[in-house]
């Protein structure tokens, strides 16, 4: 059985419908909408700007690799670094239930 928590560059991800991102006084704040998602008493989550840029591109259509290719146009960084950070972010968000995998791209 495939481990759904394993993050792959050729997989398409989308933010969970049980989360909402709001910009509050310039900060990007994730608000869990139901229990079972990032369960911590009284806690929201703050996305830094890079994470927000990545989050916005996780649209349920593009693979992480394709997202990285878009981000490289906006960041002065090597593709490998962007891919690695995307993988880290996706792994973190998946663990917290903030992200869901939609499908793996066809080879």
């Amino acid at each position, binding site marked *: 059985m495939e481990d759904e928590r394993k993050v792959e560059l050729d997989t398409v991800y989308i933010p969970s419908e049980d989360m909402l991102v*709001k910009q509050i006084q310039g900060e990007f704040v994730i608000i869990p909408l139901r229990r079972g998602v990032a369960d911590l008493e009284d806690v929201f989550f703050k996305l830094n700007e890079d994470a927000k840029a*990545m989050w916005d591109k996780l649209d349920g259509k593009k693979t992480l690799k394709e997202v990285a290719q878009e981000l490289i146009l906006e960041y002065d960084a090597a593709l490998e*670094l962007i891919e690695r950070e995307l993988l880290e972010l996706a792994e*973190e968000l998946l663990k917290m239930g903030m992200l869901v995998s939609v499908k793996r791209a066809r080879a």
Partner: protein
Amino acid sequence: MQDSFVEPLKLLELPVWEKIKNERRLISFDLEITARCNNNCRHCYINLPAKDKRTKEKEMSLAQIKNIVEQAIELRALWCLITGGEPLLREDFFDIYLYLKKKGLLISVFTNATLITEEHIKFFKRYPPRDIEVTVYGVTEETYEKVTRNPGSCDAFMDGLELLLKNKVKVRLKAMALRSNVHELTAISQFCRQRTKDYFRFDPFLHLRFDADIKRNEEIKSERLLPKEIVTIEKNDPERFQALEKGCDGLINPDFAHFGCDHLFNCGTGNGSFTVSYDGFFRLCSSLWHPDCIYDLKKGMLAEAWHKFVPQVRGMRSKRDDFLKKCRVCPIINLCIWCPAHSYLETAELDNPVDYFCKVAHARSESLAPQFRPSIATQP
């Protein structure tokens, strides 16, 4: 790029709190989704009968509520209190709640807990409220139902509360201190503190009715405690009394704490929140019902109410001599529950001193140690 992408953020760490110290910004709003209640509490200012058809017909529809919520979110509201009456009486309570929740609002609910069922529990577990505030009218059936005048309500309340607590839905308990339950206040306080350790408050200030019902208002007045009784119960609660001693000066708005000012409002009403009545009227706070201070959201937009109407109300001034010479310059106004809203409920005018409030404030002031007594200007 940086190391940490996602950081936990507690409610008090949201960047908005610092901001509102210096500017007017909408944070929260109260939705009174009904004026009806299954209880008939002696002291309550908004509890029309549960089966009152005319009142029910006047209640905002789900579509109207959604429309107002949408506008509130555009104004950057973060928090909504669902209240009533008893909000669980609404057949579409779940729809209203879920709509607010899916808009990312923090939700508080005020309820008497008598109508809580397993279905509510399942729902609240899936979509947790920020908190549910339940009022405890008594801890014995005799006292509880003397207040609520609803046979069976004590058992229903105990069952509802137990369900909430057992299922770890976040509950906060509070009490009203009135003639009919004051003998049980210590037991009520213990009952509450045993069940919700982080929070308990009681309120001895009974407001008059939103509908100005004369008979019911007389009943409320008869339930009010004497000033010295209020002081005694406050002193018996060290936590509350210390907070009163330390915080009383902070309740006054420095902009208005001066002589020669004839503004009516010296509180923060309309600065960070508003209330919507069951029939769709915008108010600056839950007590403010004067016709010149309400705005019909069925005919206008929330943005206009918030940006134009509120400053207009807050700019209201008084020409009444006894108000300007008494309440407006009173050095202990911050210990008093006098405000234009309560003045209107008591006297049908926004700027009338209220003798009972005055006596309570003076009794509270005398109870404070001299160093804690309010120190705002005392001489013109």
